[in-house]
């Protein structure tokens, strides 16, 4: 028989008085958070030197559920806040946890410039193809022809390819996984946490309530089965070839892993030179 339990071994990382979280049944966000906690546990990071920053939206709630130093910023401004944290205290390990709307629509410019400067932080972007919290409006990542509340006859805008944007802006580590690739996602998060520089992980996750039920995937389980059927792992390919289309293959994998001096290191060198 299964054993009934009261507490979970990962409860020490959570503010358990806020659990259960507000995310819908079948939402992929809980899975992504779970993988992140497993990655934290396995990578021996000092929790006193860890800061989680998130923006607004369903994914923005992550900062409130984690029992570490965390900050819930205004809409789109997670990355500028995290940049400030990192520059004021270079010892901190800064992780930005936010959604596609927050990071690429409202905060798009901040993302591009933080990646260009190669500021030492890890950005985890949960991409659910729409603005889930406000009722499922189309966003910059909604695939062509997808139906949302503001595109009831199908989306006519070309979407962003987030991995391509990150790689082109200068990120040193770029990977994409779906919420079903839990083990690979966990390993990828560990790699990104231990790497210096601007590291970016895109996680494609289900949003059954506002996106899925308008696109023939009414439950989270349907979306996960779709990922199982359609995702193809291609490590090291050019991210420009990894566009997301409705009904097409979802190309996942680690696309970029390079070394580049970070903003901190260059600044320190300059300071020594001037002295």
């Amino acid at each position: 028989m299964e054993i009934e339990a009261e507490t979970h071994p990962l409860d020490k990382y959570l503010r358990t008085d806020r659990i259960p979280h507000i995310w819908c049944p079948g939402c992929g966000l809980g899975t992504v958070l779970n993988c992140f906690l497993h990655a934290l546990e396995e990578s021996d990071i000092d929790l006193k030197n860890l800061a989680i920053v998130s923006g607004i939206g369903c994914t923005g709630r992550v900062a409130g559920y984690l029992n570490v130093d965390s900050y819930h910023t205004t809409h789109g401004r997670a990355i500028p806040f995290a940049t400030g944290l990192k520059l004021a205290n270079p010892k901190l390990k800064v992780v930005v946890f936010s959604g596609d709307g927050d990071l690429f629509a409202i905060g798009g410019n901040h993302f591009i410039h933080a990646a260009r400067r190669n500021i030492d932080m890890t950005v985890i972007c949960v991409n659910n193809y729409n603005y889930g919290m406000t009722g499922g409006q189309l966003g910059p990542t909604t695939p062509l022809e997808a139906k949302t509340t503001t595109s009831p006859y199908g989306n006519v805008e070309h979407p962003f390819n987030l991995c391509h944007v990150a790689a082109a802006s200068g990120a040193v580590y770029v990977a994409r996984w779906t919420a079903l690739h839990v083990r690979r996602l966990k390993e990828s998060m560990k790699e990104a946490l231990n790497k210096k520089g601007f590291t970016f992980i895109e996680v494609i996750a289900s949003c059954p309530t506002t996106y899925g039920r308008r696109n023939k995937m009414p439950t989270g389980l349907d979306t996960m089965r779709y990922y199982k059927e359609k995702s193809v792992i291609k490590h090291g390919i050019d991210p420009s070839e990894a566009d997301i289309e409705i009904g097409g293959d979802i190309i996942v994998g680690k696309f970029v892993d390079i070394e580049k001096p970070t903003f901190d290191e260059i600044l320190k060198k300059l300071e020594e030179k001037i002295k």
Partner: protein
Amino acid sequence: MKYWVKEELKPPHGKVYIIKDRCKGCGFCIDFCPQQVLQESEEFNAKGYHPPKLVENEKKCIGCGFCSLVCPEFAIYIEKEEEKND
């Protein structure tokens, strides 16, 4: 083969722990378990969902931990059973 393999390899086993009242019934653990160890139970939890329960064969779980990684609610985890030398 029997000359150099002294013992038969035993598959590992896992114990399944479930926090029933946290479950929201998404079904990820039931559907994606590689050993098909779990099934939906008929009872209701405090929120009105059906939490998972084990199927009859107790030794089927190999303790891979996929369910504990994929659960969005932190409601299930695995403990690996120690190998006993009999």
